[in-house]
């Protein structure tokens, strides 16, 4: 693995943004315009950028230190996360209940770890994965509390003037998940040397 600058490491694994109003970085490039912020957050595509390896693109280290300090001192408050379960993304926080639709093997009472975390957020900071937040940094635990079937859904097809009419009824299996805890370790922007081998069996 090539040696990377700390700023580049950050951009490779997770992007960090401070979004409390006091700590928000100022964009001095176009500060003289009233529309600067609107332009900054517009939906227009990002222009191509030539990345200079020598330049440090990351946030100042004290920002990361502040976040790590907040997590270590447990001052971050309630956390939320965006996780992907069975192909769908859910925004969750502790004690939420969410329903996973379709056939899904986990049984009632089983505790599972949701480890596809796309975003982790607190009141004052967000960790944004690209696409996933570093494995092992965030720990989302959930319990399966119920497995039922949905209400009867009707599938009705008809072709006019063709004597064709089909009605089908079906129910979808549903799994209720209770989110037990969302935990972060105060180790932001410190990825291990080798990644992606957690689930690999040699």
């Amino acid at each position, binding site marked *: 693995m090539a040696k990377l600058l700390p700023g580049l490491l950050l951009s490779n694994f997770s992007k960090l943004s401070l*979004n409390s109003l006091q700590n928000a970085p100022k964009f001095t490039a176009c500060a003289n315009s009233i529309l600067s912020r609107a*332009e900054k957050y517009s939906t227009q595509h990002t222009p191509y950028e030539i990345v200079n390896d020598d330049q440090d693109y990351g946030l100042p280290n004290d920002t990361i230190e502040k976040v790590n300090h907040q997590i270590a001192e447990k001052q971050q408050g309630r956390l939320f996360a965006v996780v992907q379960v069975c192909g769908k993304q859910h925004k969750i926080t502790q004690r*939420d*209940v969410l329903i996973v639709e379709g056939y899904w093997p986990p049984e*009632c009472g089983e505790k599972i770890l949701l480890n596809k975390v796309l975003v982790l957020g607190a*009141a004052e900071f*967000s960790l944004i994965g690209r696409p996933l937040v570093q494995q092992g940094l965030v720990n989302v635990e959930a319990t399966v509390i119920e497995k039922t079937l949905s*209400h009867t859904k009707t599938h009705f097809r008809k072709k006019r003037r063709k004597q064709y009419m089909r009605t089908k009824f079906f129910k979808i299996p549903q799994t*209720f998940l209770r989110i037990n805890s969302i935990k972060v370790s105060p180790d932001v922007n410190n990825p291990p040397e080798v990644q992606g081998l957690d689930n690999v069996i040699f």
Partner: protein
Amino acid sequence: MSNSHLFLKPAFITTPGQNGVGRYVCQLQRVVLKFCMSHGSSRGVREFIETRLLEFVKESPEVAVYLKPRRHKSPIIKAEYLNGETQWVNARQFTDDEVLKWLNLLKSQSSNRSGVRLRKLMHTDFPSIQGPWTPYLFRDPQLNLARFPSEELSRPLHGTKTATQQLFEIFEKQKAAQNANSS
């Protein structure tokens, strides 16, 4: 398109007693298998009782299973939940596999979920942590002081540059280059 589901009772997710916050509690209290000893429609239920019932009971010690033979009636499975609700399933002509499947479904449910349409597939007590979005989010507070009509705020947000503007820019660049060369 059929709209029959619109007449179902709409509801949000309910979970009994914060189930799963501490530990998980099975919500099925007891199950009564009612069947006939002689009729053909109860054959699957009888087979289930003979071969698989003990296994099911061992797997689920929190559920009380009762057997109630009765003459010349179709078999049913009656379930009673911890919240007092009852639900019954007509088990006529079921095979033993089907009986086991329905029993497992009743065991994993917390109440009778049929006849209710869920309006949302999630429930949260904390809808927003970083604050809800408002139109003023990430906007410059200077906007509050803007005087209208304002030329800057009236122009399109992401308009392309006009030919005149482009010419002006080229002219400015050339001027800058000349200045740099001369100095």
